[in-house]
C-alpha cells in the first residue's frame, strides 16, 4: 500500500510539471493551430536563468529567502521575453505560410536555443542550489519532501486560478458572452476588444471550456473570434489586435514554462541545457492526451500522464508476471495515448476540429 501511495505521489509531482508545460502548448495551439516545439527549450532557459541569477544573488550575499522569489521573477520575465521573441522572429513572418513551415521553424528554434544554451552555460550539468530545507515527510509510509509539496500545490493553484477567472469572475462571464454571440455582446456594451485580449492573456482556450459555449456557438463564428490565425480577416474586422493577442499568449505560456523549469531544477537539484527536450515531448503528449487546444485537457492530461508513467513503471512488471519490465514504461504511456485517441480522436476533453491538423 505504501508503495502504491508513493507511486501516486511520484506521479503527481511529475504530472504537475507536465501539466504546466502542456498548458503552454495548448494555449498556442488554441490560437495559432501551431505546435510550438520550442516550448520545451523555454522551460530549460527558465531553469537556467533562475540558476544563474540565484548563484549570482547568493554570491552577493542576498539571503536565500529573498533570492529565491527574485530569481524566479527573473526566470519568468526572461522567458516571457524569449516567448515574445520566438513568436516575433520565427512564427509571425510565417503566419500565412503553409502549416508545415512554422512547424519546421519551431524545430529549428528548438535546436538553436539548445545550442545557444550550450554555448552560454556549457555542456556540464549544473547542480541547482537548494534553497529551502528539503525535509522528507512520511505520509502513510510514503515519503514526500517540501519541494514536492510546493510543486503540487503551486501547480494546482496556478491552474485553479485560470479556471476561476474563466468561470467565476465578471470578466469570465463577459468572455463567455462574447463567445456566444459577439454582436449581441457588443450591443450590450461589452468592450469586446478588451475581453478578447484579456481572454488570450490568461489562455484563450478557456472559452472552449464552458459547455454552453461548446453547445451553442457555431464553430465558424468561434474561429473568427478565437482563432485570429485561422481567420485573421474576420477577427481584424471585429477590431482584435491580433499580433498583440498572440504575443501575450506566448508570453503567458512562457511564464508557466519558466515556473515549471524552476520546479524541475529545484526538485532534481540539477539543470542542463538538454533538459527541456524530453520534457517538452512528454508535455506535448500530455496536451494531446487531454485534447490539444483545451485548457482543462492540458491540466488533466499532464497529471494523467504523470500517474500513468509512475504506475506503469511500478506495476507493469508485476501485472505481466515479469514478462514486461519498467523498460516498457514509455511504451505503456504511449499505449494509453493511442487507446485514448482511437476512441476520442481529439483527446479526452477536445472537440473534433478536423480542419486543424
Amino acid at each position: 500500500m505504501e508503495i502504491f501511495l508513493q507511486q501516486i505521489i511520484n506521479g503527481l509531482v511529475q504530472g504537475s510539471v507536465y501539466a504546466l508545460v502542456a498548458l503552454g502548448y495548448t494555449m498556442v495551439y488554441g490560437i495559432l493551430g501551431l505546435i510550438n516545439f520550442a516550448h520545451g527549450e523555454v522551460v530549460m532557459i527558465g531553469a537556467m536563468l533562475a540558476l544563474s541569477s540565484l548563484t549570482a544573488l547568493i554570491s552577493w550575499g542576498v539571503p536565500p529567502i529573498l533570492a529565491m522569489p527574485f530569481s524566479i521573477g527573473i526566470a519568468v520575465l526572461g522567458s516571457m521575453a524569449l516567448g515574445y521573441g520566438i513568436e516575433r522572429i520565427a512564427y509571425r513572418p510565417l503566419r500565412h505560410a503553409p502549416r508545415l513551415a512554422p512547424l519546421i521553424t519551431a524545430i529549428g528554434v528548438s535546436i538553436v536555443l539548445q545550442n545557444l544554451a550550450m554555448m552560454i552555460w556549457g555542456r556540464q550539468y549544473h547542480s541547482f542550489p537548494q534553497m529551502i530545507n528539503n525535509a522528507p515527510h512520511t505520509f502513510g509510509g510514503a515519503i514526500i519532501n517540501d519541494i514536492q509539496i510546493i510543486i503540487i500545490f503551486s501547480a494546482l493553484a496556478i491552474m485553479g486560478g485560470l479556471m476561476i477567472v474563466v468561470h467565476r469572475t465578471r470578466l469570465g462571464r463577459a468572455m463567455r458572452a462574447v463567445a456566444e454571440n459577439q454582436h449581441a455582446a457588443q450591443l450590450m456594451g461589452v468592450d469586446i476588444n478588451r475581453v478578447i485580449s484579456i481572454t488570450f492573456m490568461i489562455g484563450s482556450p478557456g472559452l472552449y471550456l464552458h459547455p454552453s459555449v461548446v453547445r451553442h456557438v457555431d464553430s465558424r463564428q468561434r474561429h473568427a473570434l478565437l482563432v485570429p490565425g485561422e481567420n485573421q480577416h474576420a477577427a481584424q474586422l471585429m477590431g482584435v489586435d491580433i499580433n498583440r493577442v498572440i504575443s501575450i499568449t506566448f508570453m503567458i505560456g512562457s511564464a508557466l514554462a519558466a515556473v515549471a523549469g524552476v520546479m524541475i531544477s529545484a526538485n532534481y537539484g540539477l539543470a542542463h541545457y538538454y533538459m527541456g527536450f524530453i520534457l517538452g515531448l512528454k508535455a506535448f503528449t500530455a496536451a494531446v492526451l487531454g485534447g490539444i487546444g483545451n485548457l482543462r485537457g492540458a491540466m488533466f492530461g499532464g497529471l494523467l500522464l504523470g500517474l500513468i508513467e509512475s504506475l506503469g513503471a511500478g506495476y507493469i512488471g508485476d501485472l505481466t508476471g515479469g514478462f514486461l519490465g519498467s523498460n516498457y514504461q514509455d511504451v505503456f504511456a504511449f499505449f494509453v495515448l493511442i487507446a485514448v485517441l482511437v476512441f476520442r480522436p481529439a483527446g479526452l476533453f477536445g472537440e473534433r476540429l478536423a480542419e486543424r491538423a
Partner: protein
Amino acid sequence: MLFHFARLLLLGIFVLVLSGCEKPATTGQKDSGDLVVRIGASAPLTGPQAHLGKDNENGTRMAIDDANSKGIVIGGRKVHFELISEDDQADPKTATIVAQKLVDNKVSGVIGHLNSGTSIPAAKIYSDNGIPQISPSATAVAYTAQGFKTAFRVMANDAQQGRVLGEYAAKNLGAKNIAVIDDRTAYGQGLADEFIKAAQANGAQIVAHEYTNDKAMDFTSVLTVVKGKKPDLLFYGGMDAQGGPMAKQLKALALKMKFMTGDGGYTPEFIKLAGDAAEGVYASLPGVPLDKMPGGKEFEKRFVAKYQPIQLYAPYCYDAVNVMIAAMQKADSVEPAKYLSALAGISYDGVTAKIQFDEKGDLKGGAITVYQVKSGKWQPLETLGAITTAAR
C-alpha cells in the same frame, strides 16, 4: 522592400557563419611541405553526455598537439597531424553517419567512439574501409567480439569490470539481495548483465532488475519499485548524468541501501549531481588510479593547465592517439593498411598503463579499481584482478 532585403542579408550572413564552422577540406599537403595526417575522433559533443565527449576531445587534441610539437618524421617526411572531431550524439545511428564522414575525409585512424553503443556499429564501417579504430572508453564485450581486425580499445572490458564489481558487491560488501537498474544502452545493459552473473555466482540474489534510459531525469518510480523489494545494494549500469541524480533521489526516498555503479559514474560530475547523497557510493574504473598511473600525475597537471579538470576518459584518449602514432612510426608509414599490423603487435608505455593488445584487440591484463566517495571525493579502495583471459 528594404526590410526584406535586410532580412535576406541577415539570413545570408547566418548561413555563411554556419558553413564557416565546417572545417575547410585541405588536401594531403600542407604549405610547408609537411605530410598532413588526419586523425578522426568521435564522441557525443552535444546532449546529456557532452561534458564527457568534450573531455575525450581535449585528451585527443592534447596528444595531437604534443605529437606535432615533437616534429615526428615518418617515411622520411615530417608529419603534421590534424584532428577531425565529430559529434556522434551518443546515438548509434548518428555514429554510423559520422563514421562514414570520417572515412570520406580520408582519416588515417579513428580515436573513438566514447560509448559502446556507438563504437559497435561504427566499427563495421571502419573495418570495411580498413581504418584502424581505437576506442578509449567503449567497454562492452560486443565491441571487439565482432571479429573486425581494425577494432582496438585501451580500456578493460565489461566482462572484466562487471565481474569484479559483482564479486566485490557480494563478497567484500556482503550484499545478499541486490537490485539492478540499467539504461538499456549497449554499455549499461552489458555491464549490468556481467554484474548480475558475477553477483549470483558469489551467492547474492537479484531481487529486482529495472530499467531507465540515458536521457531520463526522474527515477522515483523505478526506485519505488526497488524499495518494495528491500535489497541491501543497488547497482546502476549507466552514465553519471543518470547515476548522480539517481543517488540523490534514492536518498530523498529514504532508501538506505548501498549504491554502486561502473566507470560511467566515476566522475566529479557524479558527485556534483548527487550532492551529499554521493557519500559512500561505490564505482569502478578499469585501470589503476590516476596517481598510480605511470604518467598520471604529470598528465593531470598539464591537462588541467590547458583545459579543465579531467572528467573521465581523457588520459585514455591521450594514450589511444599515442599508441596509434607509435604504430605508424614502427611501420614507418601512415597508410592504414601498412601500420595496422604494427598496431596489433604494439607494446607501448602509456600514461594509463602498458598497452598491448590481444588477438581480439582488447587490452591485455587490464586491472580494475574500485572507488568510493569519501568526504566528497572519489577514493580508491582496492585494485583488483588482471584476470583477462577467462570469460571472454
